[in-house]
């Protein structure tokens, strides 16, 4: 939110907490955020394949969901949509 919307820290935290349905304090709490990220498909650490497994979005997959949840465009996601949708862009 800082790089896309130019928000100051307090404003950015409040915005993200609102979108995720958690408190501002939760945003820095790995215990809470592990579950939140898993539930919303926002990607996580691949530690030994035990925490984030093959069903969980990772890498650019997670960024598709981050863009949707935060309601911001993510450049590489938009470019992926354009490049991967050459035949039928409406479907992507």
């Amino acid at each position: 939110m800082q790089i896309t919307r130019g928000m100051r820290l307090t404003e950015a935290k409040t915005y993200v907490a609102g979108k995720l349905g958690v408190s501002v304090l939760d945003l820095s709490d790995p215990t809470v955020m592990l579950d939140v990220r898993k539930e919303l498909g926002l990607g996580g650490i691949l530690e030994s394949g035990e925490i984030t497994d093959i069903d969980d979005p990772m890498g650019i997959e997670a960024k598709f969901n981050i863009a949707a949840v935060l309601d911001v465009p993510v450049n590489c996601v938009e470019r992926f949509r354009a490049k991967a949708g050459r035949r039928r862009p409406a479907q992507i």
Partner: protein
Amino acid sequence: MEPRIATRMGDGSLVEMTRSEIKADLEEGTQQSAKRAKVDPLTQDELDHLLDIYASSARFTAVDIGDEVVMSNDGTGTKHIGNRVQDLQTYEQVLGIDIVELWQIDYSYKAIKTNVAHEGQAMKIAQMLCTNPVQYGAMPDLGRYSKPDGPIDNWSELLPLMKVDEARAAQIEACAMLVEDINFVADHMVEAGADGIDMDTTGAAGDADFLAGLTACRMLREKYPFLGIEIGMASEFVLGMHGQLEFDGERLAGMWPKDQLRMVQAAGGSIYGPAVNINTGKSTAWNIARAITIIKPAMEIAEIPVHVNVGMGVGGVPTCVYPPADATSRASKAFVEILKIDGY
């Protein structure tokens, strides 16, 4: 005096032979294998064609433009340059391989079962980074289920004791475990995005090993209609370690490539890989004539793609870790032009 041509032995060593000697080796190779496998020897046209390919002093040879075939690459990568996914990217982008394969060094479905989550994650990352089809491969490797490596009584120890019934029962029990493990690993790999599953060196432990591969193949085909399933063989002949096992009512022991292919087709396989081992004491000309003679009947009935095993020690490629490109390319051209194979 007849000129001598530099050519290769089955162990990779460079020797000099005359055109007449190479011709004689081709004829002996086809006659001996035809008798052994109870198939027809190669025709005179085919032998002449092979002679043109092998009685050449060229450093490299190739098929005609437009006759190229698909390269599936079981065991993709060196394992020692970069990581495994980088290996796949290298083979996709530098070597021009068409189907790359993710695998681990302990190339056995039983071994992979214990770390399948890690293998799945690697497959998922590979799928993100590769455009080529990426399959997952390992050996059925039935022997892993017998003592001391596994829980089942060792049939190789029971047979010399004349405990034939016990040895057979042990193989059947192991076969069921293997089918379950192949399914277990394949399910995870499909979930991770795999394009195909490769059962490589199938039949290494005999007919029960082959039966496990066929049974697992049929189960996977029913579950995943889109999935590439490749069954590559361990050798030209299915050993009858059990001796009475059947698939679709047909006895597996003693099957040569034509019947092996029929079974793979019936099980729903996508690609069949025949393997004919090298005789290191004979020339590559003798070995290629033997391999093509044995595989030819399979090509005549093939309804699915046939990717011949042509790596170190099989399919006319010498048994040495640095296969000379003169020998490799001659085998490559011979299989494509004479058997009209679908790939390697």
